[in-house]
């Protein structure tokens, strides 16, 4: 079984977010980068599926050279080889086109990724890749088992869960509890040194979205406690300050 796992290179979840250049660029100073947490679940499940069924795992990232430590970590966790599309992941459609292009070349049985990245949180790439490739896409996938050429999937839907069976190939946007994150061990880190990491050019530079400006949300204010006897004050606050009445 050939598995393609698409990973994002995103700021750590504890990063302090700020902007530069008149709020048009993300300030990377002091920011630690990680494999997107949802992508990390997808990778962990891919490693488990490979252990069960054999095959190979290719990890794919659309990003500039700075993402290579993140890709090496994915190789240390258990991917066999990596491809980096040498381009800034400027918008979801651009990224989806790059993934579809690589995926068509590789004839993969499964294309896994996180349900969304945790920087822009678009959650669009898996379905766009599906459309571009003419393949089904499913998200958010919480259970994924393979029997023969069929996948048994459980996903969360509004107000419940959906169980489905799907023939490979397809695209899945993954989330917990599909697998537990894997911590790379020292032997994995050592072997990742020599695993192939291929750098390819983007298919086109057709960027369709451009950032005008970033804005931070207003800081959360402290909770106000109102005496239960003082209903007038409560009404006044709800009406004039919270503006919900």
């Amino acid at each position, binding site marked *: 079984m050939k598995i393609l796992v698409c990973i994002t290179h995103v*700021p750590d*979840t*504890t*990063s302090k*977010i700020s902007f530069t250049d008149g709020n048009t660029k*993300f300030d990377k100073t002091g920011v630690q980068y990680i494999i997107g*947490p*949802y992508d990390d679940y997808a990778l962990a499940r891919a490693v488990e599926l490979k252990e069960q069924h054999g095959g190979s795992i290719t990890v794919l990232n659309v990003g500039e050279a700075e993402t*290579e*430590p993140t890709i*090496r*970590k994915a190789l*240390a966790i258990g991917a066999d080889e990596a491809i980096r599309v040498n381009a800034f992941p400027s918008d979801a459609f651009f990224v989806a086109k790059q993934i579809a292009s690589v995926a068509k070349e590789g004839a993969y049985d499964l294309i896994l990724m996180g349900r*969304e990245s*945790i*920087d*822009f*949180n678009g959650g669009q790439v898996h379905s766009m890749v599906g459309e571009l490739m003419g393949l089904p896409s499913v998200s958010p996938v919480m259970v994924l088992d393979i029997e023969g050429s069929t996948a048994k999937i459980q996903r969360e839907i509004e107000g419940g869960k959906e169980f489905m069976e799907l023939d490979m190939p397809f695209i899945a946007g993954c*989330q*917990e509890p599909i697998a537990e*994150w894997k*911590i*790379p*061990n*020292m*032997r*994995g*880190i*050592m072997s990742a*040194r020599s695993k192939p990491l291929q750098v390819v050019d983007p298919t086109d530079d057709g960027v369709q979205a451009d950032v005008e400006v*970033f*804005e*931070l*949300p207003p800081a959360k204010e402290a909770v106000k406690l109102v005496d239960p006897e003082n209903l007038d004050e409560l009404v006044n606050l709800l009406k004039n300050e919270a503006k919900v009445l």
Partner: protein
Amino acid sequence: MSTDTLTQNGQAAKRSFTDDFESPDFYQLDDLLTDEHKLIRSSIRDFVKKEITPYIEDWAENNQFPADIVSKFGEIGAFGPTVPVDYGGGGLDYTSYGLIMQEIERGDSGMRSTASVQGSLVMYPIYAYGSEEQRKKYLPKLASGEMLGCFGLTEPNHGSNPGGMETHIKDMGDHFLLNGAKMWISNAPKADIAVVWAKNQDGRIKGLIIERGMEGFTTPETHGKWSLRASCTGELVFSDVKVPKENVLPNKDGLGAPLGCLDKARYGIAWGVVGAAMDCYESARKYALEREQFGKPIASFQLVQKKLAEMLTEITKAQLVNWRLGKLMDEGKATSAQISLAKRNNVEIALNIAREARQIHGGMGITGEYPMMRHMMNLESVVTYEGTHDIHLLILGHKITGIPAFG
């Protein structure tokens, strides 16, 4: 992108560690580490957050060695990371080894002791002084955690003076007969094998691999410790133990052989204790910012800031010493005296930081809610084992003056 979205989704997706430790890096030493070093550090840090910190206070309080940690250490690759891959090791450099010890000891000195005894005091001598057959027989199982090892040098009457050891072997033709006792041996009660140092009939110190199950070999546990309570300590008692001749380490003998192992272990301690110090510092820094007295955080008082500033200064100096010592180790140039300086200095600053950090926490600092008392009690062992604080001064004194003042 918005902070709100990042935070909300980030928290939902965040690793489920309650422990959010990040190490201070005041002099930007991360710039001197490779991406691989940083990945090694973050991997071991995640391992410690998952497998050690959630449980360590209970293990220490209950004086319980978590036996399953041995296979987990094996799986993550904490045993013998510098031993070549062909023998099951990690094939990594000494900076990597140091970072691994730092992160494990950030969790607990007892846990680090288990790992560094296995790597530096059991696997290293078998690799460096052992025969090819011995390497192939023991190293892969020790690396994977299938086997646990211990190191027998210290005796009831010979601690700082190992050359005076009484444990001895007698050549019986087709085997050696081993008699004597070793004391304060980490891992002993659970160990499958022991690397033991004993004098032959000519008074020459030889290394032997003793296996559990050999007749006359017992490992009584040492009880009543107030330190390293999550690691197991015991004695090695040899009463007419028949040791096959192929169990002798053939490629080095004399006191220099065990001291060569101690150099590796002391190097690991120099890194490890900085982990413990950073844990105490981070806990104190956070507590000082949260705890309010006189209507403001105690971090706003000068005497608390003085403590924190001195802690960070000493941690930074120790980090610099470790980084340079790691490079010297990789180049094969580190001397025993350089390792002594680092071990002695870093354990001392870690102990002082644990005590100061405990004070910043006030009464809360004496409880198991915070790590300082456990680190402090652990470090009282670390300041004594692998060469006491004073013996390392004498090693340096010898180096400076050329005059040994050991006895």
